């Protein structure tokens, strides 16, 4: 009997496509919610992305009771406590997160407090602490990369203790993810590129790391194909709404894939580099991906070779001998990075970022070695291995 075993869970209703925002009132009232609070950040408001959400609700006589638009890039326990206070004072009954990873994680944490009670979010940190369904919660992503709208985790900084608190529970998952192409139409080129490469990394690692499974594989390959087909097209024509929608859907699909199969060394390095050098996460993903795939190559040759079909299309796949497809897949990712470098200077090496000093590599390696995602990397990476990968990624 085979020892193969897997788990797959995604109860999030995906509401995607043209006029998706206008479905929010119906979906919210279907859950008995009538007094939603919006949680977002200043950048989203300044980009004019709140208006279509608010208008869509008001046209259906659903008043947005409160808007909190001051979520910082790295949210904290204090911010979560303040927003929960406003939610209670305004007698809200549901939450709509509009934004990227930080706004979404903050909204997840606020939902814990307003549903479970109390003011100390740290009391709910860890896995499986939350035992009950939370308040109705919708997510409207404004970037196409994090996949936070379909993940059961949130990370909030406890600034007093200088630690990051992880929260893990399937109850953190939103009731619905609203994917509307209007929300990503104005993303600047370098953010479009970095976030799409983040999603591509989610899908690639989901498909090649240890917890891959048949269901996450299906989402991962579909996401890789959508990104390969549309990213450079959108970079050339940012107002391509169809292409934007494809990227946004790819991000959600990659999120579903990796939240059910985890990620590997690319993320370990990315988390460590983000913590030490404060580089954006998507940029780190794009930067490290080919070097880690080369390091893992002999362990992941078969699944990586399969990805060539989705990265480079059926003609290239058919024309490449089976034993060269894994290398060809890495080459296709490198070509995509080169094209992005030409279009928006998305760095391909640590040196090209201009924000990393070579003397920091040892610290990055040490921190990456203790990152949770390294557990799911198909190879057992030692400190020396990680340093070697970093040296290749340096220049």
């Amino acid at each position, binding site marked *: 009997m085979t*020892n193969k*075993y*897997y*788990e797959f869970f995604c109860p999030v209703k995906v509401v995607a496509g043209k006029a998706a925002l206008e479905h929010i009132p119906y979906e919210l009232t279907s859950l008995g919610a009538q007094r939603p609070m919006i949680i977002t950040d200043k950048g989203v408001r300044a980009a004019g992305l709140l208006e279509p959400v608010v208008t869509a609700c008001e046209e259906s006589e659903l008043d947005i009771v409160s808007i909190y638009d001051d979520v910082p890039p790295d949210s904290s326990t204090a911010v979560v406590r303040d927003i929960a206070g406003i939610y209670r004072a305004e007698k809200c009954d549901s939450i709509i997160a509009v934004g990227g990873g930080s706004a979404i994680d903050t909204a997840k944490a606020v939902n814990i407090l307003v549903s479970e009670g109390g003011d100390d979010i740290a009391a709910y940190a*860890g*896995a*499986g602490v939350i035992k009950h369904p939370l308040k109705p919660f919708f997510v409207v992503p404004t970037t196409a990369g994090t996949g936070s709208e379909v993940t059961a985790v949130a990370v909030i900084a406890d600034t007093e203790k200088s630690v990051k608190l*992880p929260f893990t529970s399937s109850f953190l998952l939103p009731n619905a993810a609203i994917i509307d192409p209007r929300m990503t139409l104005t993303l600047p080129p370098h953010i479009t590129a970095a976030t799409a490469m983040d999603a591509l990394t989610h899908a690639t690692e989901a498909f090649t*790391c*240890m*917890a891959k499974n048949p269901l996450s594989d299906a989402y991962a390959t579909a996401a890789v194909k959508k990104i390969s087909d549309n990213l450079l097209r959108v970079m050339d024509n940012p107002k391509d709404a169809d292409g934007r929608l494809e990227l946004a859907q790819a991000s959600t699909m990659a999120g579903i894939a990796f939240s059910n199969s*985890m990620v590997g060394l690319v993320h370990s390095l990315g988390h460590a580099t983000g913590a030490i050098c404060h580089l954006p996460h998507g940029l780190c993903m794009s930067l490290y991906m080919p070097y880690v795939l080369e390091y893992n190559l002999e362990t992941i040759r078969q699944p990586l070779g399969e990805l060539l079909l989705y990265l480079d299309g059926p003609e290239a796949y058919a024309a490449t001998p089976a034993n060269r497809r894994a290398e060809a897949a890495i080459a296709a990712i490198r070509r995509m990075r080169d094209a992005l470098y030409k279009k928006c200077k998305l760095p391909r090496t640590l040196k090209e970022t201009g924000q990393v000093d070579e003397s920091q590599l040892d610290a990055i390696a040490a921190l990456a*070695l*203790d*990152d*949770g995602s*390294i*557990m*799911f990397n198909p*190879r*057992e990476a030692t400190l020396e291995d990680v340093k070697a990968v970093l040296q290749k990624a340096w220049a």
Partner: protein
Amino acid sequence: MLASRMQPMALHARRLYVNLMFQVMGNALQAISEVDGKVQDEAKALPDGFLFEMMVMPNGPSLVIEHKGQGRFHYHGSSAPRAVDLSIQFKHIAHAFLVLSFQEKTSVAFANDRMIVDGDIGYAVRMTRVLNRLEAFILPRLVAQRAVKEYPSNLHLPEKIMSASRIYLKVASQFVETARA
């Protein structure tokens, strides 16, 4: 009829095996922290007094070790003197048996959601590396290859035999001491 009588015996034997393996591992973790510099280096990053537990949910077999400082572990047996800092919990005795009988690698068990981590993930990753090094030392290579993700390429036979002998000797003495007590 016979099968239905045999099944409870098999389940009891499985529980006894898991219990025994936890005792061996607990003692061996204490022993390897006294003889291996790499394990000591890994352990030194843990706070002094750090309590680590491996257990089977909900109230099954368990092992508890404490970092006493300077990279040295102390095996507490199956119960902790106070609340543990990090707990790795198998969801079922069957899952613990799969890992401890080397039918499923520890890393694969994590990937298969056989167990959950309650505590700092970074420390859990570190303790998993310690467990892997222990298994690489004390198990014959062919068995160890079934237990760890990648058998360390730089672990050669003389070093392995020397370290394994010292670990087994210490484990045996600890068992004798426990029996006398």
